[in-house]
């Protein structure tokens, strides 16, 4: 791949902002059905017998395109796979499926397929794709002064050994990121700098090789409030002046709103909603997006604490829920969302958190502790006093106490049995991304086949 040793010294006055509509610009990155699965090691006997212990699907079929000059926000909670997606693009996480086509134009060597690239080939690509991490302190070698650190990419990629040339380029990069007066910063060490200054140095290093795409993984979340805006502004300026394209990975929908053209909301390895930022913020479709937006603490005390928060937390990626991964936490979930035996446990735990202790003791005796359940679409709730009908009565009681609980929408039948109760659930359907206006959403509420079954979604 030829290098593009152009100058970083761009006079902003001569840069015209790219006014081409987003859809008409060339595609820089085209990710199709990207998968990153990590095999679980399992126990000794499993390995001895060659049994598979399953895998963690950190990224499970993610697709998006990134056009020149676009800022795509990959937003999600921890464990959503957003960072793994970003790292996979740079060859830092093993891609187990899908395609990633990178094409920054002829000056960067034309189109490249990133999946299956070997390390030496990937090295060349990394001149065009640079990564900025969350923690600027950990990204800089404490024993290297800033000039050495920022010049390091030139050395690694064997661009030049000419000291004068290196010095000229380093100074240009320092100027670019606002580490000025340059002489004051060249020979400082990371420990001498504040968080914002360190992140500036990291950005200087990232633009050193004149990349086309910058993958920024939470670049401002470790910085103080009064500095975040400054670094975001700097990144916007760099994008404008150097013609960069950004993949912005974050958990923070507030900065993403300001920064991104397109937003992709991730949950447990999948994109659940993707579309133009303005649309997503104005009219979020997926219940998960809605709750994320409602949960952001606004610096305005006249807004009360949101009461309608999704319960629980991101589930274990090694055993993701059936159907829609968000269904156990979703207030709007209904029949096809993937209700299963495991949800019975959650239902009981939720009840026992709410009732008084003597009631809990009484009910625990009925079904035993811990509750043994079959996995999958049928659950047997045992009755320790077989034939007493106490388990049926308990389920009835739980349902009466909270008839609006989404769980009951997934139950197809409740059959009393001699030794307990048998619950059967509706067939789970995996929600696929479908077009809903200008956005794409993976939610049965927006699927005309299922939407009539749903209870109306309350607007937050």
């Amino acid at each position, binding site marked *: 791949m030829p290098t593009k040793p152009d100058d970083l010294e761009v006079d902003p006055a001569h840069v015209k902002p790219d006014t081409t509509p987003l859809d008409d610009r060339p595609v820089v990155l085209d990710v199709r059905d990207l998968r990153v699965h990590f095999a679980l090691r399992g126990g000794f006997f499993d390995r001895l017998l060659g049994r598979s212990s399953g895998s963690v699907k950190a990224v499970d079929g993610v697709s998006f395109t990134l056009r020149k000059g676009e800022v795509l926000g990959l937003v999600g909670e921890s464990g959503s796979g957003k960072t793994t997606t970003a790292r996979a693009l740079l060859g830092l996480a093993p891609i187990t499926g899908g395609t990633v086509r990178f094409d920054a134009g002829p000056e960067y060597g034309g189109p490249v397929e990133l999946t299956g690239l070997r390390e030496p080939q990937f090295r060349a690509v990394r001149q065009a794709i640079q990564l900025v991490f969350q923690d600027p302190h950990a990204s800089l070698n404490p024993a290297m002064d800033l000039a050495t650190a920022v010049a390091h990419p030139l050395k690694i990629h064997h661009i030049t050994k000419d000291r004068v040339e290196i010095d000229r380029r380093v100074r240009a990069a320092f100027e670019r990121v606002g580490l000025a007066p340059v002489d004051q910063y060249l020979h400082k060490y990371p420990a001498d700098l504040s968080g914002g200054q360190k992140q500036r140095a990291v950005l200087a290093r990232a633009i050193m090789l004149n990349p086309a795409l910058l993958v920024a993984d939470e670049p401002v979340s470790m910085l103080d409030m009064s*500095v*975040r805006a400054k670094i975001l502004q700097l990144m916007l300026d760099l994008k404008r002046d150097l013609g960069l394209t950004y993949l912005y990975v974050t958990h923070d*929908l507030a900065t993403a709103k300001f920064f991104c053209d397109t937003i992709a909301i991730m949950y447990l390895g999948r994109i659940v909603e993707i579309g133009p930022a303005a649309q997503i913020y104005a009219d979020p479709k997926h219940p998960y997006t809605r709750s994320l937006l409602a949960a952001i603490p606004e610096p305005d*005390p006249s807004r009360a604490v949101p009461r309608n928060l999704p319960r629980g937390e991101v589930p274990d990626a090694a055993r993701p829920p059936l159907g829609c991964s968000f269904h156990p936490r979703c207030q709007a979930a209904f029949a096809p969302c993937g209700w299963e035996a495991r949800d019975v446990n959650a239902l009981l735990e939720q009840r026992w958190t709410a009732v008084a202790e003597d009631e809990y003791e009484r009910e625990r005796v009925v079904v035993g502790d811990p509750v043994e359940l079959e996995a999958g679409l049928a659950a047997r709730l045992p009755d320790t006093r077989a034939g007493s009908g106490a388990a049926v009565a308990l389920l009835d009681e739980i349902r009466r106490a909270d008839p609006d609980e989404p769980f009951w929408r997934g139950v197809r039948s409740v059959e009393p049995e001699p030794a307990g109760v048998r619950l059967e659930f509706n067939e789970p359907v995996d929600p696929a991304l479908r077009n809903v206006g200008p956005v794409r959403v993976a939610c049965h509420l927006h699927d005309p086949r299922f939407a009539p079954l749903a209870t109306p979604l309350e607007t937050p």
Partner: protein
Amino acid sequence: MTAAPVISVRDLRVWYGTERGPVRAVDGVSFDVRAGETLGLVGESGCGKSTLGRGILGLLPSGSAVDGSVRFRDRELVGVKQSDMREMRGAELGLIFQEPMTRLDPLMRISEHFAETLRAHEPELNSEEIDARSIDTLRRMGIPPTRFRHYPHEFSGGMRQRIMIALALVLNPAFVVADEPTTALDVLVEAQILSILADLKRNFDTSLLLITHNLGIVAEACERVAVMYAGRIVEEGDARQVFSDPSHPYTRELLRSTISLSTTALHYIPGSPPDLVDPPSGCHFHPRCPSAMQVCGSLDPVEVRAPSGQRVSCWLHGPDELIPPGGTAPLQRQELASADEA
């Protein structure tokens, strides 16, 4: 607001010894927290807010010095014997840390954590009473009783933070310091924990000092807020009042630079917080303050009550009779380099 203060801090000062001289991390801070009240202490990193929280609980590292007064009910906490302090911590003064992952013993069941805490402070309880109290507290934090005998690794981050809060509250302390309790958590879990903290006074009648850098959290969980800058409280008052009508230029600029969903333009404060070994003379904020006057660089501001009710230390609010002639003229200063920042 006539309830007697549970904790009363007066002119508290904390220094740390360093090679370059003493760092004045807390520099003359005064405030009260009343029964059942939540006070938000907000500021950027390095402003001394965590040091202040720990200073109140007597948890400062060696090499630090404390001066001033912290009155808890009728007892003076500054200069009290370590053994007496240890007895009060937990039972009367609680602390909730930032990282729930590292504060639970991985080899101890949750039930054992509670038993250890309760046995140390209330030896008269028998094991049934211990279990009942612990399960009840956990339940109020949303942890089901079925999980009582699990180990910490079986819980998620948010659950662990709930357990930490339950561990602090099971002894019914009158005053709790929560130091960035949600910083390591995801947005949805953070919101869950915030609503628990906002309900604290309803459920436990505990006074809370909530230390955070996030103004949004203060807005959601606190009745009163104290804004700290470079070791001093620059403004303190009713949270709604302070957020809707900030009196101190720092509060105003901090609110403006916070990126929220309603942000339409990026704004930031020029310059960076000062080095606390050698802080600027006069008002510590004057080198970055857009409204700075001649007097701000030379005289320490005096605390006054702003017309809207909050306490504020800023010469813009007077008292006029203390400002020397010509002191209200705008301060002249050289341009700041763009990277001269936090």
